[in-house]
């Protein structure tokens, strides 16, 4: 038994981070076991997000990862994985309706420019040229032409499929209880079923659940979770290819290849939402979807007759400072952390997976992720 459950790397969490890391590890010749608590691959935020593949609007600490992914990985991803991930690199508009909004957008733009990203402010006329369907209420936007979107469900499953084909062993329905150190190194992963898995490296990429798992080896990632919601319309005529967001964060989303619009948003009470959904499938609140609809219609009046066919909810694991915790933990050898993506992990997932695989095999990354290290949290004074 012990022999069978042994691999070079054991990854906890078969979300897109776990699946992508598993894929890039197998590509580098490593044996991998991926353990998933739920019955489904990619059951958390990986399948529940709005599909943004953005650089704009990101914190400078994670921007290098986003830029690296969009330059090096996303363009060839569908071909590499053998599944159409529906990636489109046709820009991101972050919309504003008031002067206050424009101020926010200008701030974000300046910070991104400083990191070498091509983002610029566009006025009402320019916005209309990029997207003629927008309402006249929009007075300006930030525009990042190299941003885009992809299908998160398919991308996640495509990484899983390819990793599985390359020999990664995925086990679902296996929630993890503890990690165990062997002679000073995190090595064993003990499941609630009492099954034991052993790896030279153990990567924890289990979303919010990571916190409980990490504490068994004395590591704590300061994060909380919020229940966010998305909705999808029936297929519409092809309208526009950009990824959208707003300065006010009313909603975000895009039109998928299928023709449906996928929009995410909030009601404002997410922090305290109740979740009555069954296990593995968080429940929606009664007031969020109507609120998202009102938000969308203010920007896209012509979508008012589009029928909503489905809504869903998903937890995001929000880090204390809004960016993920990635990499080794000093003094806890064998452990790799990749969690607290704070609601914007999908777009950087291929880059995270690829860099984590490098970190585990080469001992270092090629992209600077030092700003995302575990040890960064300090008191405010």
């Amino acid at each position, binding site marked *: 038994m012990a022999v069978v459950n042994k691999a070079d790397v054991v990854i906890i969490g078969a979300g897109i981070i776990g699946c992508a890391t598993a894929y890039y590890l197998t590509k580098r010749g490593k044996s991998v076991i991926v353990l998933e608590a739920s019955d489904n691959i990619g059951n958390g935020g990986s399948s529940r997000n709005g599909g943004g593949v953005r650089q704009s609007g990101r914190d400078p600490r994670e921007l290098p990862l986003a830029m690296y992914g969009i330059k090096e990985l996303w363009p060839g991803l569908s071909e590499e994985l053998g599944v159409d991930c529906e990636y489109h690199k046709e820009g991101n508009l972050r919309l504003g309706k008031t002067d206050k909004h424009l101020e926010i957008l200008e701030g974000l733009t300046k910070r991104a420019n400083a990191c070498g990203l091509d983002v610029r402010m566009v006025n009402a006329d320019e916005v209309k040229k990029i997207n003629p369907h927008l309402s006249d209420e929009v007075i300006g936007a930030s525009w990042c032409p190299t941003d885009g979107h992809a299908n998160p469900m398919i991308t996640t499953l495509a990484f899983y499929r390819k990793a599985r084909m390359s020999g990664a062993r995925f086990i679902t329905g296996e929630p993890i209880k503890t990690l165990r150190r062997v002679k000073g190194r995190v090595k064993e992963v003990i499941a609630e079923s009492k099954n034991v898995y052993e790896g030279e490296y153990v990567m924890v990429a289990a979303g919010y659940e990571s916190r409980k798992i990490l504490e068994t080896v004395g590591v704590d990632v300061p994060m909380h979770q919020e229940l966010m919601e998305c909705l999808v319309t029936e297929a519409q005529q092809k309208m526009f290819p950009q990824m959208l967001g707003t300065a006010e964060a009313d909603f975000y989303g895009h039109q998928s290849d299928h023709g449906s619009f996928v929009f995410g948003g909030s009601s404002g009470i997410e922090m305290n939402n109740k979740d*009555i*959904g*069954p296990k593995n499938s968080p*429940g*929606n*609140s*009664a007031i969020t979807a109507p609120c998202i609809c009102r938000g969308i219609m203010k920007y896209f009046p012509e979508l008012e007759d589009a029928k909503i066919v489905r809504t869903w909810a998903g937890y995001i694991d929000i880090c204390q400072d809004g960016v993920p915790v990635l990499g080794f933990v000093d003094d806890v050898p064998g452990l790799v952390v990749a969690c607290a993506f704070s609601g914007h992990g999908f777009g950087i997932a291929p880059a995270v997976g690829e860099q984590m695989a490098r970190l585990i095999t080469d001992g270092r990354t090629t992209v600077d992720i030092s700003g995302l290290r575990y040890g960064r949290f300090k008191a405010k004074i």
Partner: protein
Amino acid sequence: MKRYEVIVVGAGPSGLSAAIEAAKRGLKVIVFDENEKPGGQLFKQIHKFFGSKKHHAKIRGFKIGENLLEEANYAGVEVALNATVIGLYADKEVVVRRNDQVFHYKGDCIIIATGAAENMVTFPGWTLPGVIGAGAAQTMMNLHGIKPGKKVLMLGSGNVGLVVSFQLLQAGCEVVALVDAAPQIGGYGVHAAKLSRTGVPFYLSHTIAKAHGEDCVTGVTICEVDSQFKLIAGTEKYFDVDTICMAVGLSPMSQLLKMSGCLMEDNPKRGGQVPIIDEFGETSVPGIFAAGDVSGIEEASSAMIEGRMAGVCVAEYLGYCTHEEKNESLAELKKDLESLRQGMFAPANRGKKITKTEEGIEISDSLLKNGFVAEQEIERYPGVVHKSGIHPVIECTQNIPCNPCQDACPKGCISIGENITNLPVVEDENVCINCGMCVASCSGQAIFLVDEDCGDGSATVTIPYEFLPIPEVGEKGFGLGRNGERLCEATVVSVKSVKAFDHTNLLTMRVPKEYAMSARFYAS
């Protein structure tokens, strides 16, 4: 947000029954239904129901619907139509679409009675226009007055398939065949016999191999299947049809229960994904109940009782009746439900092969395989007797919970006894007065009045007749056998339609006396 003590979702038989019981006890109740008319499936049911007198036996389904609505109005139930429940959220919050707006309601209790949806099976061509559900066919015919097609093949020999096939005939469609992959007929034998005697052929151990047509159905090929349900090459049969009806079961529409966090199970015996409920319909979430098909596929009569049970339970839950009162009501309802769940078709007997009746009489093999009781088999049943003069002949050969015939006869010629599933017995001593009440009362159309020897070499046979046009007295046609075969010439000697017969016409035909015990239908 408006608050009700009870929110019922679905104004079908179980939902309305639940609402009635709750409102009767003083609760403020609203029922939401997405349709423009209440009643669920009841208003599509133009046939007479089985059961006991207490449970609407011999009353037609739509009339039961009307009665229920009247009872609901009287009890003060608010029924909101064109009101689509789009979600059931935390703390029993219900969001409803009404016209161009959505409304939030809060229920202290929720009763989900959303019913079921039709299953489909696939075969090449199953997505062609013209392939429809049997329930859809019923909606077209009986609610909208539209003939689903001219020539129809029915797949599925359960009660739905049998009943809808008969209604298709009544609507003037030709039913070219009734097909089922199972080796024997699934529904009531009396329903099958009604079809057989009109000439509809049954193909058991057969399934659809292919629907033909480019833009719509123009024909169908069926094929025999082996015991593993695999098609047997070389057994194909082709029919010219424009419609294929599927009556292959129902699946509970339990999504609202699932989304509200009720524990669910996948239970093939109950038709699919159903909530885990107690005996009286309460789910794992206190105050949320389920009643009717949504908690397990049965039929309307039991759905109504389940609804009443849930209604009583919410009344007690919210303090409108005592625990003792609740238990008393429930005990009685439970007894009613149990009486309906008896006999050979009881849920407990599903999947079992039953070879003998409760009386120990062998079941007709021909009935199960061909849809009619063979001539050499019919004499073994207690309703089939020979007497001089007019007398009832009851071709009721399976134990089903139904007994209106016993009360229908003013002379006590028919007895079933205490046990509602007993086969009816024709009493020897009592004398039939040819009133016809028994014929009209039999929901299975299995009772005939026969004068085996009129003295002139002829016999008369009175049959229930629910087709249009009604043959004229004096008309000459043919007496058909149980299998629909033309046996002999027949003359219509009388057609009686009185109010008490409730739209069942009694057609009396004169046939040569040797056909007295075999002519069971008339065709002009």
